[in-house]
């Protein structure tokens, strides 16, 4: 039998306090660790070259010392050439493209996902389980395996016309192959399956068609999941860069990440960290704003997506 340990009120409170301090201390330390790269990125973007290259590094800049030239330089107009009149870092063009691509991809994904999830959740057909297993299995396949063939396919479709590619074609090439997500089908199917059968039978008795039932009953009920899918999927376009670079012929058709790739180097090949960080900040900020706007949905969605799919 354990020895009985009796402590007084004070000891109890102290113990609670220490345990709280340790916990909060640990969490705060991690939180700082998480935030540091963001801070460092923004701080660097506000420094002059001299400040960036000072040793030891400057950890804090007073507001009055902020240099926004790194940002303004990004928007300096190119004097001549193909991109004459456009900014050095065509942030707004990239943003516009990214938002459009993200919107279209998400729209397409939602449509294919809802239809397929409905079929898997609600309808009964031959080979359903096998097909579902096959689809799930494709989630394991590294996407790299597809990329070359897909490029050739896009070519066959006439969307990659090196000389005459239009914006529409570029958009098609960037969106159509990504209008599928087995993961979301799986995720939505789970939600659909939680909707009681009785509702379906009741609707059937009322003479509602399957499609109407999907539209009027299932989709509204599953709305939180669908919203989650929409948000998660829209964020994807922010990170995409291999494919957009591959299937677009012109810089102005590309997405934000592609803009970052053209590493900001000065004429001697030295990295211009200030400009680089300014561009990185510009790319990061919209996402962060989006995140804070939909914080609850995003976090709930991602959390749930992790719980058994």
């Amino acid at each position, binding site marked *: 039998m*354990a020895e*009985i340990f*009796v*402590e007084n009120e004070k000891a*109890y409170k102290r113990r609670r306090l220490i345990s709280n301090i340790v916990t909060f201390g640990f969490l705060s330390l991690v939180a700082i660790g998480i935030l540091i790269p963001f801070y460092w990125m923004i701080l660097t973007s506000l420094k002059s070259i001299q400040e960036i290259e000072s040793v030891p590094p400057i950890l804090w800049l007073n507001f009055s010392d902020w240099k926004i030239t790194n940002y303004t330089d990004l928007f300096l107009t190119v004097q001549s050439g193909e991109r004459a009149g456009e900014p050095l870092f065509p942030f707004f063009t990239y943003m516009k493209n990214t938002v459009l691509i993200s919107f279209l991809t998400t729209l397409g994904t939602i449509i294919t996902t809802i239809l397929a999830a409905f079929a898997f959740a609600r309808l009964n057909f031959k080979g359903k389980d096998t097909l579902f297993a096959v689809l799930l299995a494709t989630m394991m396949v590294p996407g790299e395996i597809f990329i070359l063939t897909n490029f050739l396919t896009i070519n066959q479709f006439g969307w990659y016309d090196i000389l005459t590619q239009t914006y529409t074609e570029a958009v098609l090439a960037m969106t159509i192959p990504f209008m599928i997500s087995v993961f979301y089908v799986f995720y939505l199917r789970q939600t659909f399956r939680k909707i009681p059968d009785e509702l379906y039978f009741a609707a059937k008795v009322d003479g509602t068609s399957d499609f109407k039932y999907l539209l009027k009953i299932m989709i509204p009920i599953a709305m939180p999941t669908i919203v989650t899918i929409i948000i998660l999927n829209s964020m994807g376009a922010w990170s995409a860069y291999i494919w957009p670079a591959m299937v677009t012929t012109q810089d102005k058709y590309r997405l934000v990440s592609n803009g970052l790739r053209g590493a900001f180097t000065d004429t001697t090949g030295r990295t211009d960290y200030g400009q680089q960080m300014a561009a990185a900040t510009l790319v990061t900020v919209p996402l962060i704003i989006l995140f804070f706007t939909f914080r609850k949905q995003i976090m709930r969605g991602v959390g749930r997506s992790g719980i058994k799919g």
Partner: protein
Amino acid sequence: MEIKMENLTKVFVAKDKSEVRAVDNVSLTIPSGKLIGLLGPSGCGKSTTLYLLAGLLRQNDGKIYFEEDEVSNTPPEKRGIGLVFQNYALYPHMTVRENILFPLQNLKVEAELAKQKTVEMARLVGLESMLDRKPKELSGGQQQRVAIARALVKTPRVLLLDEPLSNLDARLRLQTREEIKRIQRETQITTVFVTHDQEEAMSISDEIVVMKDGVIQQMGAPQDVYDDPSNLFVAKFLGNPQINVFDGVIKGKKIYINDMVVGKSKLPDGEVLIGIRPEGFIVDQEKKSPFKFNIDLVSTIGRDTTLIVDLPSESDNILDKKSFKAIVDAMLRIQSGDEIHFIVRPEKMFLFNMEGERLE
């Protein structure tokens, strides 16, 4: 192990900042080696009291002693208690053996001994053959017994049971009730048993404690409390069917219900509440008693007949509900529509003031 609670108070603060005094200034001594039933309707604070004893909740005020040890600030793991949860809280990923072994491992009991104790305990609760099953492979009753075994294996000073039978079906409940009683008797551990089921509490407990709104109403041996409730709440809470409560008057040492004399009292004149247990009615076969009614419904089960009497409309005021129940001998063959004269057994009749406090 005697348990003593002194002025124990637990206040919960809800999200809207409103306060609920779940346990309100409770002082109570639980004698060593007894099985105590902590009884009350849901929300009365009985579970909170149990959790305070366990140390899972922390009192806002007051003290708890196990014998002479004050354990008010002792964390649960150091109080030396065993607790059986309402839904058992068996670790789903551990086998029965592991579940039982777990507390011993935590107490660093020597492995060989721990093993032996586990088997002993499993034998005590009759689950020797199930040691290697997972909880979900057991029936509710079996799970319950594993929970008890786990609570007992470390030979706790106190065993606490939180509504341990509520998840069982009726038959199992009876059986397990006996089991708990047997085990408690064999181990002689001071046991506190929380339930909202008065029948359960009364059948199993050495003593019962009736609680309401965080306050102890009465404590005593089950039959004592039943026979001598200290207030209307206790009287109503104990007994099935429930006690019948009538509005009555005392006039000149006599007790009247609707001008019908039902007994005598030394109390001064005035309005009272009269509680009469269903078994307190005796059918006056000579039909002399003025206390008479037409019977509405008769149901006979075995040797008892329950009479349900709908009160005439003009006598609305005599009862807190529209009917009362009387249990009489089935041999009387009473049928609905019969007019029956009742005599009330004085020991089954309790007088309360309008606030529900017991008079005399």
